[in-house]
């Protein structure tokens, strides 16, 4: 420690809040030079929680905001999406119509694998309709 005027004890008691030492160039110089005092200064600031002032109505306002946000989400969900309905209706019509056609008018030349492929295609259309329309059914 180069400084004779400010001792480690002066600095440390000030940092502990036991004395009212002033911010002088000597004190700064001491802090910059003395590893232990610098460490104590850093640790004491890190460990001390900053002074905060929570607004009195904070909890109530936050609860109100959460409720409002919840209502907005519910409102957004309740808005009907016509495009989705149309897509589901078209897909269902297509899959049911195709299924009916295949069932009612089987071609005499249709062999096993081809018929199977047709049914798989129809099933895929039906599944697609269910997947697209999932939010509508929830």
């Amino acid at each position, binding site marked *: 420690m180069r400084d004779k005027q400010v001792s480690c004890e002066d600095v440390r008691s000030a940092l502990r809040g036991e004395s009212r*030492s002033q911010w002088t160039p000597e004190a700064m110089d001491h802090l910059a030079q003395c590893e232990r005092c610098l460490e104590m*200064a*850093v640790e004491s*600031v890190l460990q001390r*929680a900053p002074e905060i002032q929570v607004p009195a109505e*904070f909890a109530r306002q*936050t609860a109100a905001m*959460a409720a409002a946000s919840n209502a907005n989400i519910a409102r957004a969900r309740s808005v009907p999406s016509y495009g989705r309905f149309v897509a589901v209706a078209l897909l269902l019509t297509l899959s049911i119509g195709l299924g009916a056609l295949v069932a009612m008018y089987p071609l005499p030349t249709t062999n096993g694998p081809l018929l199977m492929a047709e049914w798989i295609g129809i099933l895929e259309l039906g599944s697609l309709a269910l997947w697209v329309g999932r939010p509508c059914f929830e």
Partner: protein
Amino acid sequence: MIVREHQSMVFRTLLRMTGGGEQIKDLAQEVFLRLYRALPHFRRDAKISTYLYRIVLNVARDEWKRRQKERANLIPMMDAEESWEERLAHPGRNPEQLLLVKQTQAVVESAFMELSEPERAVLVLCCQEECTYEEAALILNLPIGTVRTHLHRGRQRLKEKVRERLNRCVINK
């Protein structure tokens, strides 16, 4: 109920992580709104405080990025170094503000804001909030070894930065 129980922790962590500002209340509200939206997915085996710390750190990170962007867009009106020196002692301040303990706090806090985000987060969690290494690792989703490294490196860098500032102050006096 949750808000009342955790509001102090949210405010003080946000304050340390962002360095304060007028938006702290808005940020704290954002934290609780995010928690509220995430509650349906909340796993009961986890502690709500762990979950909340994560949200606080994410909100602080977003705010930090926003401020960085804002700062980058602004034409620098003054030297960045002057901003913290401005906060330090000068004859116009009252005796209470000139106390060694207050000024040391100002120097350390301004130096703290220059650390990297993970270093600040680990220092806040382990020193201010008294979390264990395991808790900090869980909150930050980092291995315990990395938490220890950030803590050690953060302390070292903070001391270096504080020392630099003090030396510059002494030279200026």
